[in-house]
């Protein structure tokens, strides 16, 4: 079994030395393996500043880890030869948050689709290229005759985002990283785009890393979930376990903040303080200053990962009893390896 991606004790620290006030630990000692077979959707959930986008940028090779290494199919993404890098850029595709900013307004939307075909020589003739484009557009529910030949400003945000998904599909990648792909799209169109991503996973066998702050959409499309807070894993495991019955107080906070359209499930006022960046030399649990269950030891030592169930770990002292600890390097041990219902 080959690993598709592997994070080995990766930390990313922005800013200067240990006593620099601006020093920010964006990702701390993070390890994870995602297998190539079977292709699954992994959700990475957290607020702004949780390190979820840094994780994606490290994976793409846009950031260099401060310590540790990131591997794609066994190759360090920061030490690839030119031809390896080229193959990597083919195999890993990205869907960005902002469907407005990624288009050049002077080009027709065709440009984002024809460019990768030319670059990676996916078609030998114009007709073949056109056929390819029509196919991928159809997969995401767009009609070629209504899409091609238009300028970005003539399309809705939802349509633009679907073209980006179609573009990713064009290259038949091994992995798609989708960073908040629906947060700037109308609520009514979100479902369609997430449905598209799900289809790419099921029909074309593409693994997906879905980065979001919304547990609800993460629950709907993914198989495994990692909840990050200030660069550290709070909770991780099979998605039905994590969202169905969140154990970490931070996951519970995220869960209780989702506005549900259900009159019986109204928001409770809990007065959780806003997030504050822990000091660079803070050794305790990063969620301690917002946690309603905070204990003395939370301020001094970061809790390890407690494996509370076969398919879940929680980094919280509340679950210390009767739960074995799991090495942070073995996060994937609690992930499901087969798609579940």
């Amino acid at each position, binding site marked *: 079994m080959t690993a598709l991606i592997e994070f080995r004790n990766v930390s990313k620290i922005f800013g200067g030395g240990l006593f620099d006030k601006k020093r920010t630990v964006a990702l701390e000692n993070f390890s994870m393996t995602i297998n190539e077979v079977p292709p699954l959707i992994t959700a990475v959930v957290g607020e*702004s500043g949780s390190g979820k986008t840094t994780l994606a940028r490290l994976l793409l090779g846009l950031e260099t880890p401060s310590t540790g290494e990131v591997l794609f199919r066994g190759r360090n993404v920061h030490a690839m030869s030119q031809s390896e890098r080229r193959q990597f850029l083919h195999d890993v595709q990205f869907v960005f948050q902002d469907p407005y900013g990624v288009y050049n307004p002077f080009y027709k939307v065709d440009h984002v689709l024809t460019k990768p075909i030319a670059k990676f020589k996916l078609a030998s003739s114009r007709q073949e290229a056109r056929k390819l484009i029509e196919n991928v557009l159809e997969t995401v529910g767009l009609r070629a005759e209504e899409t091609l030949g238009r300028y970005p400003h003539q399309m809705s945000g939802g349509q633009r985002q679907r073209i980006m998904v179609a573009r990713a599909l064009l290259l038949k990648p091994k992995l798609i990283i989708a960073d908040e792909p629906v947060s700037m799209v109308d609520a009514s169109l979100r479902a369609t785009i997430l449905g598209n991503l799900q289809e790419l996973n099921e029909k074309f066998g593409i693994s997906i890393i879905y980065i979001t702050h919304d547990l609800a959409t993460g629950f*709907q499309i993914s198989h495994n979930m990692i909840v990050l807070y200030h660069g550290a894993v709070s909770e991780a495991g099979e998605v039905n376990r994590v969202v169905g019955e969140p154990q970490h107080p931070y996951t519970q906070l995220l869960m209780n903040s989702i*506005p549900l*359209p259900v009159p019986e499930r109204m928001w409770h006022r809990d007065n959780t303080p*806003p*997030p504050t960046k822990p000091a660079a030399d803070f050794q305790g649990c990063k969620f301690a200053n917002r946690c309603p269950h905070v204990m003395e030891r939370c301020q001094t030592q970061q809790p390890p990962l407690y494996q509370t169930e076969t398919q879940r770990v929680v980094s919280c002292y509340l679950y210390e009893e009767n739960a074995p600890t799991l090495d942070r390097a073995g996060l994937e041990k609690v992930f499901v390896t087969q798609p579940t219902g």
Partner: protein
Amino acid sequence: MSEVVLQVRNLQVHYATPRGPVKAVNNVSFDLHKGEILGLVGESGSGKTTLGMALCGLIRSPGRLAGGEILLDGRNLAGLSEDAYKKVRLADIALMPQGAMNSLNPVIRIREQILDGLRDHGVMLTRLEADHHVESLLERVGLRGEVANMYAHELSGGMKQRVAMAIAISMKPKIIIADEPTSALDVVVQKRIIETLQDVQAELGASIIMIGHDMGLMAQTVDRLGVMYAGQMIEIGAISKTLVDPKHPYTRLLIESLPSTTEKKPLRGIPGLAPQLLNLPQGCAFHPRCPHTFDRCTVETPALIEAAPWRWAACHLLDTDQ
């Protein structure tokens, strides 16, 4: 129902284009009651933001108010001169614009930006009074007094949104129009901003029109909900009733398109695309996307009818004579 603060009657906003007028707001009527939060939802291009701008007298060329009345405590604001409307804005109707957090001036301290509006309305304050006023406004929206001396770039997205709220309430308006007050914010921050908005509203006794596209957020926030489609109000009524038993098929689809956290189901959005306003379909504007379309929908535009007590919807299915 409590007293009515604002009555909007047959409001029309048209944008002139070479291919004819675009009816961005098409014959919209509704009442806003004292102390209530009214939500307006719809897809991009449904006219909800234009409606909010029209209530603030902010429609600029090539747009124009093409008809209708905006009655604030019985006084018609439609057709007021720009100078006269300036006196109404902020003092009576305040706007928290879309992306309010990006509307702050980056080179002016927060204190000055809050006082700017007051000065424009001829409110004279001594330095001490001004300091006190700014501090109490900031505290009311959950910010520390020190924020007054900061610049926009020193604040987080949620804090900037709170500053926009402080500016909006600086003259104790009767009506606050909040256009997507939490878009681009994280769920946790979003919840806290909405809670603050509710607190501020209760304290001032103001009415709020909250514009957005997220049904879930509306469910948690508003008292009544208006649903807009292609410039028209197609359903309006108490949110608690609308959520359980939506009267318009579009409203039902909006609610169903939200992801659940308890059961996994196939993700389906609303099929089709929002219509082009220049080229609206004949009859009901929603009929090409509606799962229940029948002959009448393609020829006749449905009018808002009272589908249940205090609930109105514009759909031929509700016409019991059929």
